[in-house]
């Protein structure tokens, strides 16, 4: 039922979201306090926050954070550009799609972590090896979403474009791309967090500088609250990245059912 909407919907959403996060914090605070878990291994939220404040006061933390963000942003940008391009091309040429399908399926499940020796071999512990892993993992997320998106194009819309003799490029630009856009958005959101996960994992495992390495050091140093504090930072990064993606989505997909439905139904 379409009830008249009260208040500012955007503000509403933010408020509810903050409430959700507050609930999570409360659970983490209460679990060790009530003795559900040993607080040596999962300290209460307040102690994690204290450790976080301590970290935030150190310069090393901010350097690590920016290292991670640079690796993430670069890797994601490359993966999204390559994924969208490859997806549109492969998706709109059926022969290409048939030809590449098996290879895509073969390469996709190869875990980035299995590529670590290769990455180290090529780039040592430089940014390059993190980037390689990030790009490899994020690329497939985008590619597959774009392929599904392209397949979802409305035949009538597509034929309209064909009948007006749109060039191949115009068909992609004006019909395939807008249709695939919602899928691309989901793909980018998936890829953004996979890229973050991989950036941190790579730092964790290879030891290139960044939050992941800090987490590894904290773990190895038996500094449990600090480790959780750093994990919280990665989570918060994820929330912020999603917020960014959502804002972009609301602007670019105002015409789409999923967004306009928010308003009218």
């Amino acid at each position, binding site marked *: 039922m379409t009830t008249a909407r009260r208040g500012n919907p955007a503000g509403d959403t933010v408020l509810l979201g903050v409430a959700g996060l507050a609930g999570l914090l409360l659970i983490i605070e209460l679990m060790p306090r009530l003795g559900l878990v040993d607080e040596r291994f999962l300290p209460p939220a307040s102690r994690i926050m204290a450790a976080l404040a301590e970290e935030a006061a150190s310069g090393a933390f901010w350097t690590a954070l920016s290292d991670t963000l640079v690796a993430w942003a670069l890797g994601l940008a490359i993966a999204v550009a390559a994924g969208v391009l490859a997806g549109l091309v492969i998706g709109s040429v059926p022969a290409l799609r048939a030809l590449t399908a098996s290879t895509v399926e073969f390469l996709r499940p190869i875990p980035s972590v299995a590529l670590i020796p290769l990455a180290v071999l090529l780039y040592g512990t430089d940014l390059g090896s993190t980037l390689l892993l990030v790009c490899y993992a994020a690329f497939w997320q985008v590619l597959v979403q774009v392929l599904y998106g392209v397949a979802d194009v*409305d035949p*009538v*819309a597509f*034929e*309209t474009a*064909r*009948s*007006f*003799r*749109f*060039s191949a490029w*115009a068909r992609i630009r*004006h*019909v395939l791309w*807008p249709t695939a*856009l919602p899928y691309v958005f989901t793909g980018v959101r998936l890829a953004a967090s996979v890229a973050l996960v991989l950036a941190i994992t790579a730092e964790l495992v290879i030891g290139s500088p960044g939050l992941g390495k800090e987490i590894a050091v904290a773990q190895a140093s038996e500094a449990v609250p600090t480790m959780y504090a750093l994990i919280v930072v990665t989570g918060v990064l994820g929330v912020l990245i999603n917020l960014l993606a959502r804002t972009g989505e609301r602007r670019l997909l105002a*015409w*789409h059912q999923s967004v*306009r439905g928010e308003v009218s139904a």
Partner: protein
Amino acid sequence: MLEVKGLRKVYQSGSREVEALRDLTFTVENGDLVCLVGPSGCGKTTLLRCLAGLLAPTAGDVRVDGKAVDGPPEGMAVVFQEYGRSLFPWMNVRDNVELPLKQKKVPKRRRQELIEQSLDAVGLTGSAAAYPWQLSGGMQQRVAIARAVAYEPRTLLMDEPFAAVDAQTRADLEDLVRELWKRLGVTILFVTHDIDESVYLGQRVVMLSSSPTVVQDELLIDLPADRDQLTTRADPRFIALRTRVYEQIQAAKKNAER
């Protein structure tokens, strides 16, 4: 010129096989305005899609200006029956109309003119900034018509383009089509299930039988070239012609039922 010779189309999806068109042959001369009538599901849309180069026939020959059709021919515009899905929901009305013109590389100034004129002609001047899904069904259909009109095609295929508009608007649009046809000398193939409309609009009416679909009959509409809603529709000749079409369609239906 549109030539259709021995056209046959069988849809096959899984085990289900539908012979939508059995054997169609007819011609539309350059500058003609031909109406196509036939019962629901007889294959009118299928025929149009074959002509527009959007569907490969199972057998037979389709030519536009002497060239075999193997993709959408140049200078052709199509108004689809599924008007709602043929508009791009991510563009507003103006952009929907403008995009094909851009594709045709019409200069900017001229584009503005064409968009304004065509939206005006279908009575949507005020809605240029709206998105298709903010419009009523009839308004959407009129956007699709405006888009085709603005394109200034040499050949225009229209698939039940007035199904969703009210009687008055419909009459206006009918006159718009005839005026356009006379002014620009376009070739028009107009699919409708409204018999009066087909007689009022066309120079010729092609009647299709129900499936298995063949051309049931063709009728030359020998009404004066200047037609108007009141006098033409009251003309005894008009009434005779419409009765004739009606009878043929009834006969086609009977045939099918037997």
